[in-house]
């Protein structure tokens, strides 16, 4: 079992090295993709925050309409919706950061391997 694990570990490192080296050999393509990713990220965060406010407001408005308590719930859920939107955005950025760190780590491994050779 232990041997199999180490084999899998080695395969994983190889995979990481391969992907990192692929990345290094396509710099032009990467630059364009990175820009597109930043654009995509900006869009994602904006939409995420707006969606939170919109959905919160809508649910509140609907509860108010059913209970006849305008505008208590709408205001309450509007604020909660802002919180939800903000939380979604923070999560998105945290996720992006985790991925970037993984990529950097992989790059370091492959750079170290190159030095050995």
């Amino acid at each position, binding site marked *: 079992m232990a041997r199999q694990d180490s084999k899998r570990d080695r395969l994983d490192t190889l995979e990481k090295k391969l992907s990192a080296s692929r990345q290094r050999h396509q710099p032009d393509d990467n630059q364009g993709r990175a820009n597109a990713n930043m654009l995509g990220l900006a*869009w994602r965060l904006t939409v*995420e925050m707006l969606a939170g406010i919109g959905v919160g407001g809508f649910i509140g408005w609907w509860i108010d309409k059913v209970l006849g308590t305008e505008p208590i719930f709408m205001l309450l859920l509007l604020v909660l919706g802002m919180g939800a939107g903000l939380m979604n955005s923070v999560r998105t950025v945290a*996720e992006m950061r985790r991925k970037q760190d993984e990529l950097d780590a992989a790059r370091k491994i492959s750079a170290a391997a190159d030095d050995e050779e």
Partner: protein
Amino acid sequence: MAGKSGAEGGAGIDPMHQFEVHPIIELPSIAGIDTSFTNSSLWMVLAVGLASLFMIFASRRTAIVPGRMQLMGEMAYSFIANMIKENVGTEGMKYFPFIFSLFMFILFCNMLGMLPYSFTVTSHLIVTFALAATVFLLITGVGFARHGIGFLKLFVPSGIPVFLLPLLVLIEVISYLTRPVSLSVRLFGNMMAGHTMLKIFGGFVVGLGSAGLVPLAIAPFALMVAFTGLELLIAGLQAYVFTILTCIYLNEAIHMDH
């Protein structure tokens, strides 16, 4: 797009005209719902048809050394298969048919929308919302089928003081409910904004050109060429983003971790 704007003539260009839905075959409404076959339906059918044709041709003659079509088909397959394996794990491959169809449909709709005189199905919020709502309901269903009532634990963050818990659960529930909205608005917004922009720049080219200021029309024309390239990128990218977010949500429903 340039040809499209030109056909409609000079100053009176309406950049929103391209988004109009009109019936091609009038059908009676059933229970108050208009069931007419519209230009939107036509382009959806075309997208489904072309995507199916593409995959049928790609897998018609399978060789060990793939031909051009087979290579493209295999690339599309492995692109989505890798996306699922990376984001969901091997259990996610059960849902491969759904995610692959979703990706191909959105990609073909976006790409067909880039053709002059075509109609961009995904530039309508109701279409993207229907797609996102399907994804949302399916994934919620998967979550409850896998974890039963325990799926609700997704809304209870760990390591939070008890007095804050009710507030955070509420926020978590709202954040979960925003998913179909943000998913659909993102795709719709990108497609609509891009196509409107192309139309406006096309209007500049034709307007300046017909006013006899042809040298001046070169600048918006060059911008339009660049924007068309960017739009092609966005068309692909947005299909990718929609699919990868579906994978991320699916992963959460299966493994229940943030």
